[in-house]
């Protein structure tokens, strides 16, 4: 049911009046809530100029916000690349015609999707740190990347699988008909098409990676939140600092989400007539932290 308007009739004069009244009440209540939040914050001194002027200084941007953002984006960018690789390998593994490969890939993917990312991060951080396998100050970044890769890679593996299964059977049959083996057909015909169909869901998953990278501060990775806390300690404005951090995350993620929506509209003509395969997956995985 895509056209929401059918839920209610084209409004007549009375309905229009009711909607208008509802609208005014809604706006008033909304403004009331906003005013209450602002006045409470002001009352508690959170809106004083001294709380916010640090964000007008270049020092704050140069030494806190930008380095933090760079580290956040660095962890996210590496994790995006490795997650897509992991997802392709295990997604194709789950579609393999060799039963043992299918099972192993299936167990790995199901296990990793069930384990909280934070748990994996803490584990790799402490395990790597004490093993001496990596330099101690690199352990947080590596732990963040591995944890994000294992979880999001598993989700992407599921996207690949459902994307391929959502393809019309004729694609594989055509591949076989021109003499490709099952694996060749998977690699060169099915997966590439599935990738295009799953692009919006994939981008939604990138939002998850970016958001989850913020868990890194718990294991001392100096990402944006960590830097903003540090700024907040020094300036005594931790609430405004975290608000700025939240705003930065919202802007980037909103842009990515919008891109995903646009793409899904744009690509809908290519995927018309197929089974809707990836809808559930999007709703689920975007919810991860």
């Amino acid at each position: 049911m895509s056209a929401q308007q059918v839920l209610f009739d084209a409004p007549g004069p009375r309905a229009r009046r009711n909607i208008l009244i509802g609208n005014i009440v809604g706006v008033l209540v909304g403004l009331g809530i906003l005013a209450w939040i602002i006045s409470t914050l002001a009352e508690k001194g959170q809106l004083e100029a001294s709380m916010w002027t640090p964000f007008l200084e270049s020092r704050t941007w140069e030494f806190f916000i930008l380095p933090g953002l760079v580290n956040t984006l660095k962890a996210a960018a590496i994790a995006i690349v490795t997650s897509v690789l992991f997802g392709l390998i295990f997604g194709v593994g789950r579609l393999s015609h060799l039963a043992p490969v299918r099972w192993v890939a299936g167990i790995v993917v199901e296990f990793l999707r069930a384990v909280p990312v934070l748990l994996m991060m803490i584990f790799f951080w402490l395990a790597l740190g004490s093993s001496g396998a990596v330099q101690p100050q690199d352990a947080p970044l590596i732990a963040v990347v591995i944890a994000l890769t294992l979880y999001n890679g598993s989700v992407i593996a599921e996207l690949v699988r459902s994307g391929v299964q959502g393809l019309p059977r004729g694609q594989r049959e055509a591949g076989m008909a021109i003499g490709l083996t099952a694996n060749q057909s998977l690699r060169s015909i099915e997966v590439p098409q599935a990738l295009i169909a799953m692009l919006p869901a994939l981008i939604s998953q990138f939002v998850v990676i970016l958001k989850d990278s913020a868990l890194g501060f718990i294991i001392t990775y100096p990402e944006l939140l960590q830097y903003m806390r540090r700024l907040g300690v020094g300036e005594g404005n931790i609430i405004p600092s975290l608000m700025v951090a939240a705003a930065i995350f919202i802007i980037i993620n909103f842009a990515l989400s919008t891109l995903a929506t646009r793409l899904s509209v744009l690509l809908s003509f290519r995927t018309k007539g197929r089974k809707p395969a990836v809808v559930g997956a999007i709703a689920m995985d975007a919810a991860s932290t």
Partner: protein
Amino acid sequence: MRKTRYAAAAVAAVAALTLSACGGGDSAESEGGGGGEGGGESLRIGIKFDQPGLGYDEGGSYSGFDVDVAKYVAAELGVSEENIEWVEAPSANRENLLANEQVDMIFATYSITDTRKETVDFAGPYFVAGQDLLVPTDSDITGPEDLEGKNLCSVTGSTSAQKIKDQYPGVQLVEQPGYAECVTAMGGGQIDAVTTDDIILAGLAAQEANAGKFKVVGNTFSEERYGVGLPKGSDRCGDINSAITKMIGDGAWEEAITSNTEGADYTFNAELNPPEPEPCA
């Protein structure tokens, strides 16, 4: 670019990506491999970056008591300020940083303990801190015994706070990721006291934004001897100790404490301070 060696094959793939993406790392950079060893030209010093009043990254420059002592000691070792490379040394990483020789010395609220002495060497102590309470200026709490039924805040995993909780079961303990959260909650009146080492509390209370709001109770109930962490077998211990003694003697030590805790209504424990550096092993 940072030069780092990775050993484990298990993480090689990820590590390779990490390495290639590490253009602007903010931690240890060693120029020309093993720089800073022996020559006395430059030093890599580990400090806290997030502890105002002790070791704090102001954005390109560093402030705090640990930093001031480190600068003084470095000068005595013949290293000028611009040749010091500051490296972040979070509590969990201090032993590792020394063991891997990624820093030459650590000034980071590093208590001398027998367990730690097994893996690292210590010079100093240069300060004897003690667990204490930070309370609002108008509070009548004077020690942990007044905390029954009160709300106490500390950082997650802090053993010092847990000790109080075990001793006074009526205390309500809140754990937060950082002291900034504790101080904010205390500013709002939801928390009655924050606990950790007295000088850390003094550094927090001395922040401009907190000036005049909080006081350090001044009734310490433990002894934390802050030492200079050195790699095992380091030959710098003696020189550092004489630098510390000189700093205490010429008044720079006391001045460093006063200037870094200004506005905190704080006086250090004069019975234990200034400390006499222990003889080097």
